[in-house]
């Protein structure tokens, strides 16, 4: 028998539905096999919530992952979506290919800090450069969970592993990299911050382009101890929230009422609205230089800034730049993909 069966969630008494008339349960996946309390499970829940609340058509979603604990999680949400658990660090290319084949899909990739920052850093770099339409989530716990707790490239200097080893190499800041390389939506969040993560995910669903979301997601088994900078306790104490994120999808009325000047409003490509409450620093998430400064300053204080760090709502995405026909390439009929005999005759004549 299969070791995995879809989890059955009892329907709520008064079944609530979204704009597609679907219940939350239809967005669930198979039962998680990750450790109890793993941050990744909370992210899975937020993905389910975000897709439900946005009224995402799961049949139009493609799920991708690489290898590692994080990369198991696409099996735990959106059972009605096709998923592809690829190889270590190579999810970006597989996702790119699938989106080339069918640009009408929504790509949702889940990676880990090792999968992205170590073995997969090359493909990550080029995914960001291309600004492929994809929601790329890093479930970031600073260690390799599935191989029992080795440091990953996002581990901070001085962070202590469970066995007492101290990390001495500087971390890769995936948000800074993504921004520098061309991703048009860059955010960081914490798996314990339900409200913020949900808003960011909903905004990401509305965005067309690469949404790189680094989510600090503590590993309860190998990296949640005293001395770790990716533990729940450390994350709670050092989360520097960049002001409240409020997302209003295009299909809802804007009912937020902020004092003039207190928020930055960003109109998304699909007509949705993003309201970012200004912090004391008057942070502007469309200013790339300011975003870089912020990341450096918070990191130097041992904190991590969370929220939408950078957004460029109208940047052209990779698939648009390829100027392909409207029908997905995967479904083009033969007469559109096999030129007529006259073309071969012409080519042959040129070679005679």
């Amino acid at each position, binding site marked *: *028998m*299969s*070791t*995995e069966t879809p989890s059955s969630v009892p329907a709520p008494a008064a079944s609530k539905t979204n704009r597609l008339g679907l219940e939350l349960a239809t967005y669930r996946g*198979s039962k998680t096999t990750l450790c109890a309390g793993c941050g990744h499970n909370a992210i899975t829940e937020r993905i389910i919530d975000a897709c439900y609340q946005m009224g995402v058509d*799961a*049949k*139009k979603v*493609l*799920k991708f992952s690489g290898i590692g604990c994080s990369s198991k999680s*696409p*099996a735990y949400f959106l*059972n*009605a*979506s*096709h*998923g*592809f*658990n*690829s*190889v270590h660090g*190579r999810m*970006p*290319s*597989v*996702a*790119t*290919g*699938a*989106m*080339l*084949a*069918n640009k009408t*899909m929504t790509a949702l990739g889940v990676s880990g800090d090792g999968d992205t920052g170590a073995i997969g850093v*090359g*493909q990550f770099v*080029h995914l960001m450069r291309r600004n492929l339409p994809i929601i790329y989530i890093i479930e970031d716990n600073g260690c390799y969970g599935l191989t029992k707790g080795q440091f990953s490239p996002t581990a901070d200097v001085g962070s202590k592993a469970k066995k007492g080893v101290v990390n001495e190499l500087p971390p890769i800041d995936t948000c800074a990299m993504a921004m520098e390389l061309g991703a048009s939506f860059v955010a960081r969040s914490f798996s314990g911050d339900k409200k913020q993560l949900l808003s960011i995910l909903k905004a990401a669903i509305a965005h067309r382009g690469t949404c790189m979301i680094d989510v600090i997601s503590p590993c309860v088994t190998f990296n949640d101890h005293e001395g770790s900078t990716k533990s729940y306790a450390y994350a709670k104490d050092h989360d520097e929230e960049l002001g409240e994120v409020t997302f209003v999808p295009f299909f809802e009325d804007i009912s937020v009422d902020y004092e003039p000047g207190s928020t930055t409003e960003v109109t998304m490509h699909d007509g949705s609205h993003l309201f970012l409450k200004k912090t004391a620093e008057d942070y502007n998430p469309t200013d790339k230089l300011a975003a870089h400064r912020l990341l450096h300053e918070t990191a130097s204080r041992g904190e991590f800034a969370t929220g939408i760090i950078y957004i460029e709502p109208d940047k052209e995405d990779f698939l648009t730049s*390829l*100027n*392909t*026909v*409207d029908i*997905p*390439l*995967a*479904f*083009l009929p*033969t007469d*559109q*993909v*096999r*030129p007529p*005999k006259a*073309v*071969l*005759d012409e*080519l*042959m004549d040129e*070679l*005679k």
Partner: protein
Amino acid sequence: MSSPSVSAAPAESLSSHHVVNDFSISVATVNGSGSQTANLVLLRAIFQMGVPISGKNMFPSNIAGLPTWYTIRVNHKGYIGRKRDVDFLVAMNAETAREDVMSLAPGRVVLYDAPLKLSELRDDLIFYSVPFDEIVRDVCPNAKLRRLVKNMIYDGVLSHLLSIDLGEMVKALSAQLGRKPKAMALNQTALEAGAKYAQEHFADIAHPYRIQRMNKTEGQILVDGNAAAAMGCMFAGCTVVAWYPITPSSSLPESLISYMRKYRMDQETGKATFAIVQAEDEIAALGMVMGASWAGARAMTSTSGPGVSLMSELAGLAYYAEVPAVVFDIQRVGPSTGLPTRTAQSDILSTAVHSHGDTKHVLLLPASMAECFDMAGDAFDLSERLQTIVYVMSDLDLGMNTWMSEPFTYPTKPLDRGKVLDEAKTRELGASWGRYKDEDGDGIPWRSVPDGPGPAYFTRGSGHNAMAQYSERAEDYVSNLDRLAKKYETAKGLVPQPIEDSVAGAKVGIIAYGSSHWAVEESRDQLRDTSALPTSYLRVRAYPFPDSVEDFVRRHDRVYVVEQNRDAQMLSLCRMDLDPALQTRLRSVLHYSGLPIDAGSITESIVAQEKS
């Protein structure tokens, strides 16, 4: 102008008689000097005169300044494999001239750049000295262009020495440069100046090698295998291409880009019916191909040995997760810092079992331009039918050299998109559908494509049961592995079948594949005519081997497996797959110099082994 220098060879040499339409010309130049245009004009002019030719470029892995040799073989019988010996040397490169001259057999001919003073080296050759610098000074006022234009002068000289119609030369030049009037005019002047010089200075000499008009190339085309394969991909309905530059593969995707941009843009909207992406490396290229194929596109990549090595991990996933993918391997000698511009058939064994775990793959083995074209289509059909990775094992000799061919046949067979769930099949199978379930007994399951009518499933490597659910149960793994083996058996009946040419009573058989074919055909004639050794021939066109391969070995006392690698890679596959009792019949003919195999080498090897 300096006085002409012609030194005739001794009387017993070839100068006493003519050799018509059966010789080889080697043009030794420096790469980056623009000699390719002149060489193709020479090749094309002879081809236009109806004489069978083949052109092989031996070039360095370098952009400018290193020696390069372009060899044209002319053969009235139509032998188009490489000829080992050079009959007519055009020595334009000071660096190699001495060695090139010393390697010629007595009586052969050398046309050389006057300052090289080559006639002093030997007295048993025919030398023609031409002051190229002086001629080019008169025809090309722009000093910067002289280095390039100089090459066209040797074409002009050759037109006289080899009796090649100058009009055909001009026509061939026009095919190359017709769209650039200035360059055309300048080069034509150089061509004519060369011819004039030869007429004025070498008129009284009996020239031993001659081209005489025939009608053996009528209707034929001149093409390289990478262009042929690119055309094949376009007519096969390829929609996604991901690639990374590597010699000798790059010209395949680059040709494909130019064909697709011309012929695969939607006429109404001007939008592309394809996506071509230059990936960050070969790993990403195969990843993109697999993602695209998984999502329902016809996707391909093209690479060479080092790239195939990088693709290894994903290839294993393609095998286990049953994702179609088409990979062209334009083989060359390895490794990356080796001889990337020399040909080989040396990825056969490693590609047949490419990747980790228990894997075995489908290889297609094109031998001709037409097969480079046709097998591109076969590769997509087989890859989707079998839901697996399919390799087209071309090589540098096929891919980058210029070959004669019959025009390609327009594919009329419908595209075989394989077992993809449509609405009717989805309804028919209902809840019983399993992504990895052997519904039809051929080992090939039904595939559901995202955004199609079939149910969703989660694609992962080997840890799944027939229903594509996560499973680490031993029975599930074994059952899946056995089904994959059954699928491989099914492949034997679907791949291009071997082509056999049996001679009644022949005790000796030859097995060959790919670009070795042409030299084998010529060698069989040599063995029959000069060694009274009739041979039967089986040209293998795909792996896994259909049963006919074993039958062929069974019917012959000794079977020579001819291939271009050191370690007898195809022979090793035969040893793995054929009846062990037949293995003592198998012998090897190996060629691994990096130069294309030639008939003489095969003949000598077989004759020697037959004697022993």
